[in-house]
């Protein structure tokens, strides 16, 4: 049995948008969505950058400030949910039936290798920035403003999410009202 790419990808997306605003980039507002990897990139990752131990040390120190350990736990928890759902679907059982199986047998393996996942985050940053840059980033996040930025990221995300949802719903409903006849003519059905 293989965990499907779909479920795993969904889990990663859901994991606090894992990565979107958190582990790999909590530091800053993401300027845009990550560029999708081309099939070639996905199949054959780019050559690994040279990562020095000094860079890793600085990246780990930055990660302590950014809370990567907590985020890794969140990712694993989200994977747990995805696996429960996946196994339940595959085996025609309820998710409730799968909880004990996953918690007893599989989760210890994931929790036991959490350090491996965190190392990937460390290496992503250690390979992308110099030790000086990583130190300067940590200095920024240790200032009152940097600290405020980090402390308040989750709440700002929530507010923006809610505002965006409300906006999309409002525009959609306005559009529905404005063009009811046209929708009907084209065979468009509205959910109850």
């Amino acid at each position: 049995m293989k965990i499907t790419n779909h479920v795993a990808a969904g889990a990663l997306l859901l994991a606090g948008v894992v990565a979107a605003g958190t582990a790999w980039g909590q530091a800053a507002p993401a300027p845009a969505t990550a560029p999708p990897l081309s099939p070639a990139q996905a199949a054959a990752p780019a050559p690994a950058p040279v990562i020095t131990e000094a860079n890793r040390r600085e990246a780990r120190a930055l990660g302590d400030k950014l809370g990567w350990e907590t985020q890794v736990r969140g990712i694993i928890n989200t994977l747990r949910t995805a696996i429960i759902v996946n196994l339940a679907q595959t085996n025609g059982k309820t998710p409730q039936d799968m909880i004990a199986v996953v918690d007893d047998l599989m989760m210890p393996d994931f929790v036991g290798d959490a350090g491996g996942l965190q190392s990937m985050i460390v290496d992503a940053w250690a390979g992308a920035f110099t030790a000086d840059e990583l130190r300067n980033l940590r200095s920024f996040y240790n200032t009152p403003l940097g600290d405020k930025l980090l402390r308040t990221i989750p709440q700002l995300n929530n507010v923006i999410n809610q505002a965006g949802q409300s906006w999309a719903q409002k525009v959609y409903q306005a559009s529905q009202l404005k063009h009811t006849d046209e929708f009907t003519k084209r065979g468009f059905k509205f959910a109850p």
Partner: protein
Amino acid sequence: MTMRRLAAGLFAAMVAATAIPSGTAAQGTRPGQAAPGVEENRREARALADILDIPRQAQALMTQMRVEMIKATMRTSEMNEESATAVVDDILMPNFHARSAELLAEMIEPYALNFTFSDLRALRAFFASPLGQKLLRTQPVARAQAEQAGLAWGQRLFQDSVDRHVDELRARGLKF
């Protein structure tokens, strides 16, 4: 079509931004009810948003919404992709595009309401600096690479775990 669900999924998956103190957000002034000084903050927040490339994020969200609306239309109205695309592009999207400035304003407003004028200026200075620029430039790429690595990690661990516990999993009624 359950637009609330669609919109929720979209935004949860795509929007990533910075921070806002929850208490302040709850008490925040809504557009049109600006407290003194908020207009200044909005100007500064817009300048920060430009550096953070938030207008492009808003456009990306609209593009993603279009894709999701086409899928939802195909599902709920049992249309083929071509017909669903036509309905979305001809009828829905013009309304979304016409009001896109509202979306951008909604995405910027929390910055204006929850950071002081000097905070916003300092953030802009940081993100305009070489290090801030590098952070903004590098982050999406590092994120994509790390997501790939994380996905591979999850798949490997899952497969290893299944292999290790295959007898016990079968004993508990799981089929492979």
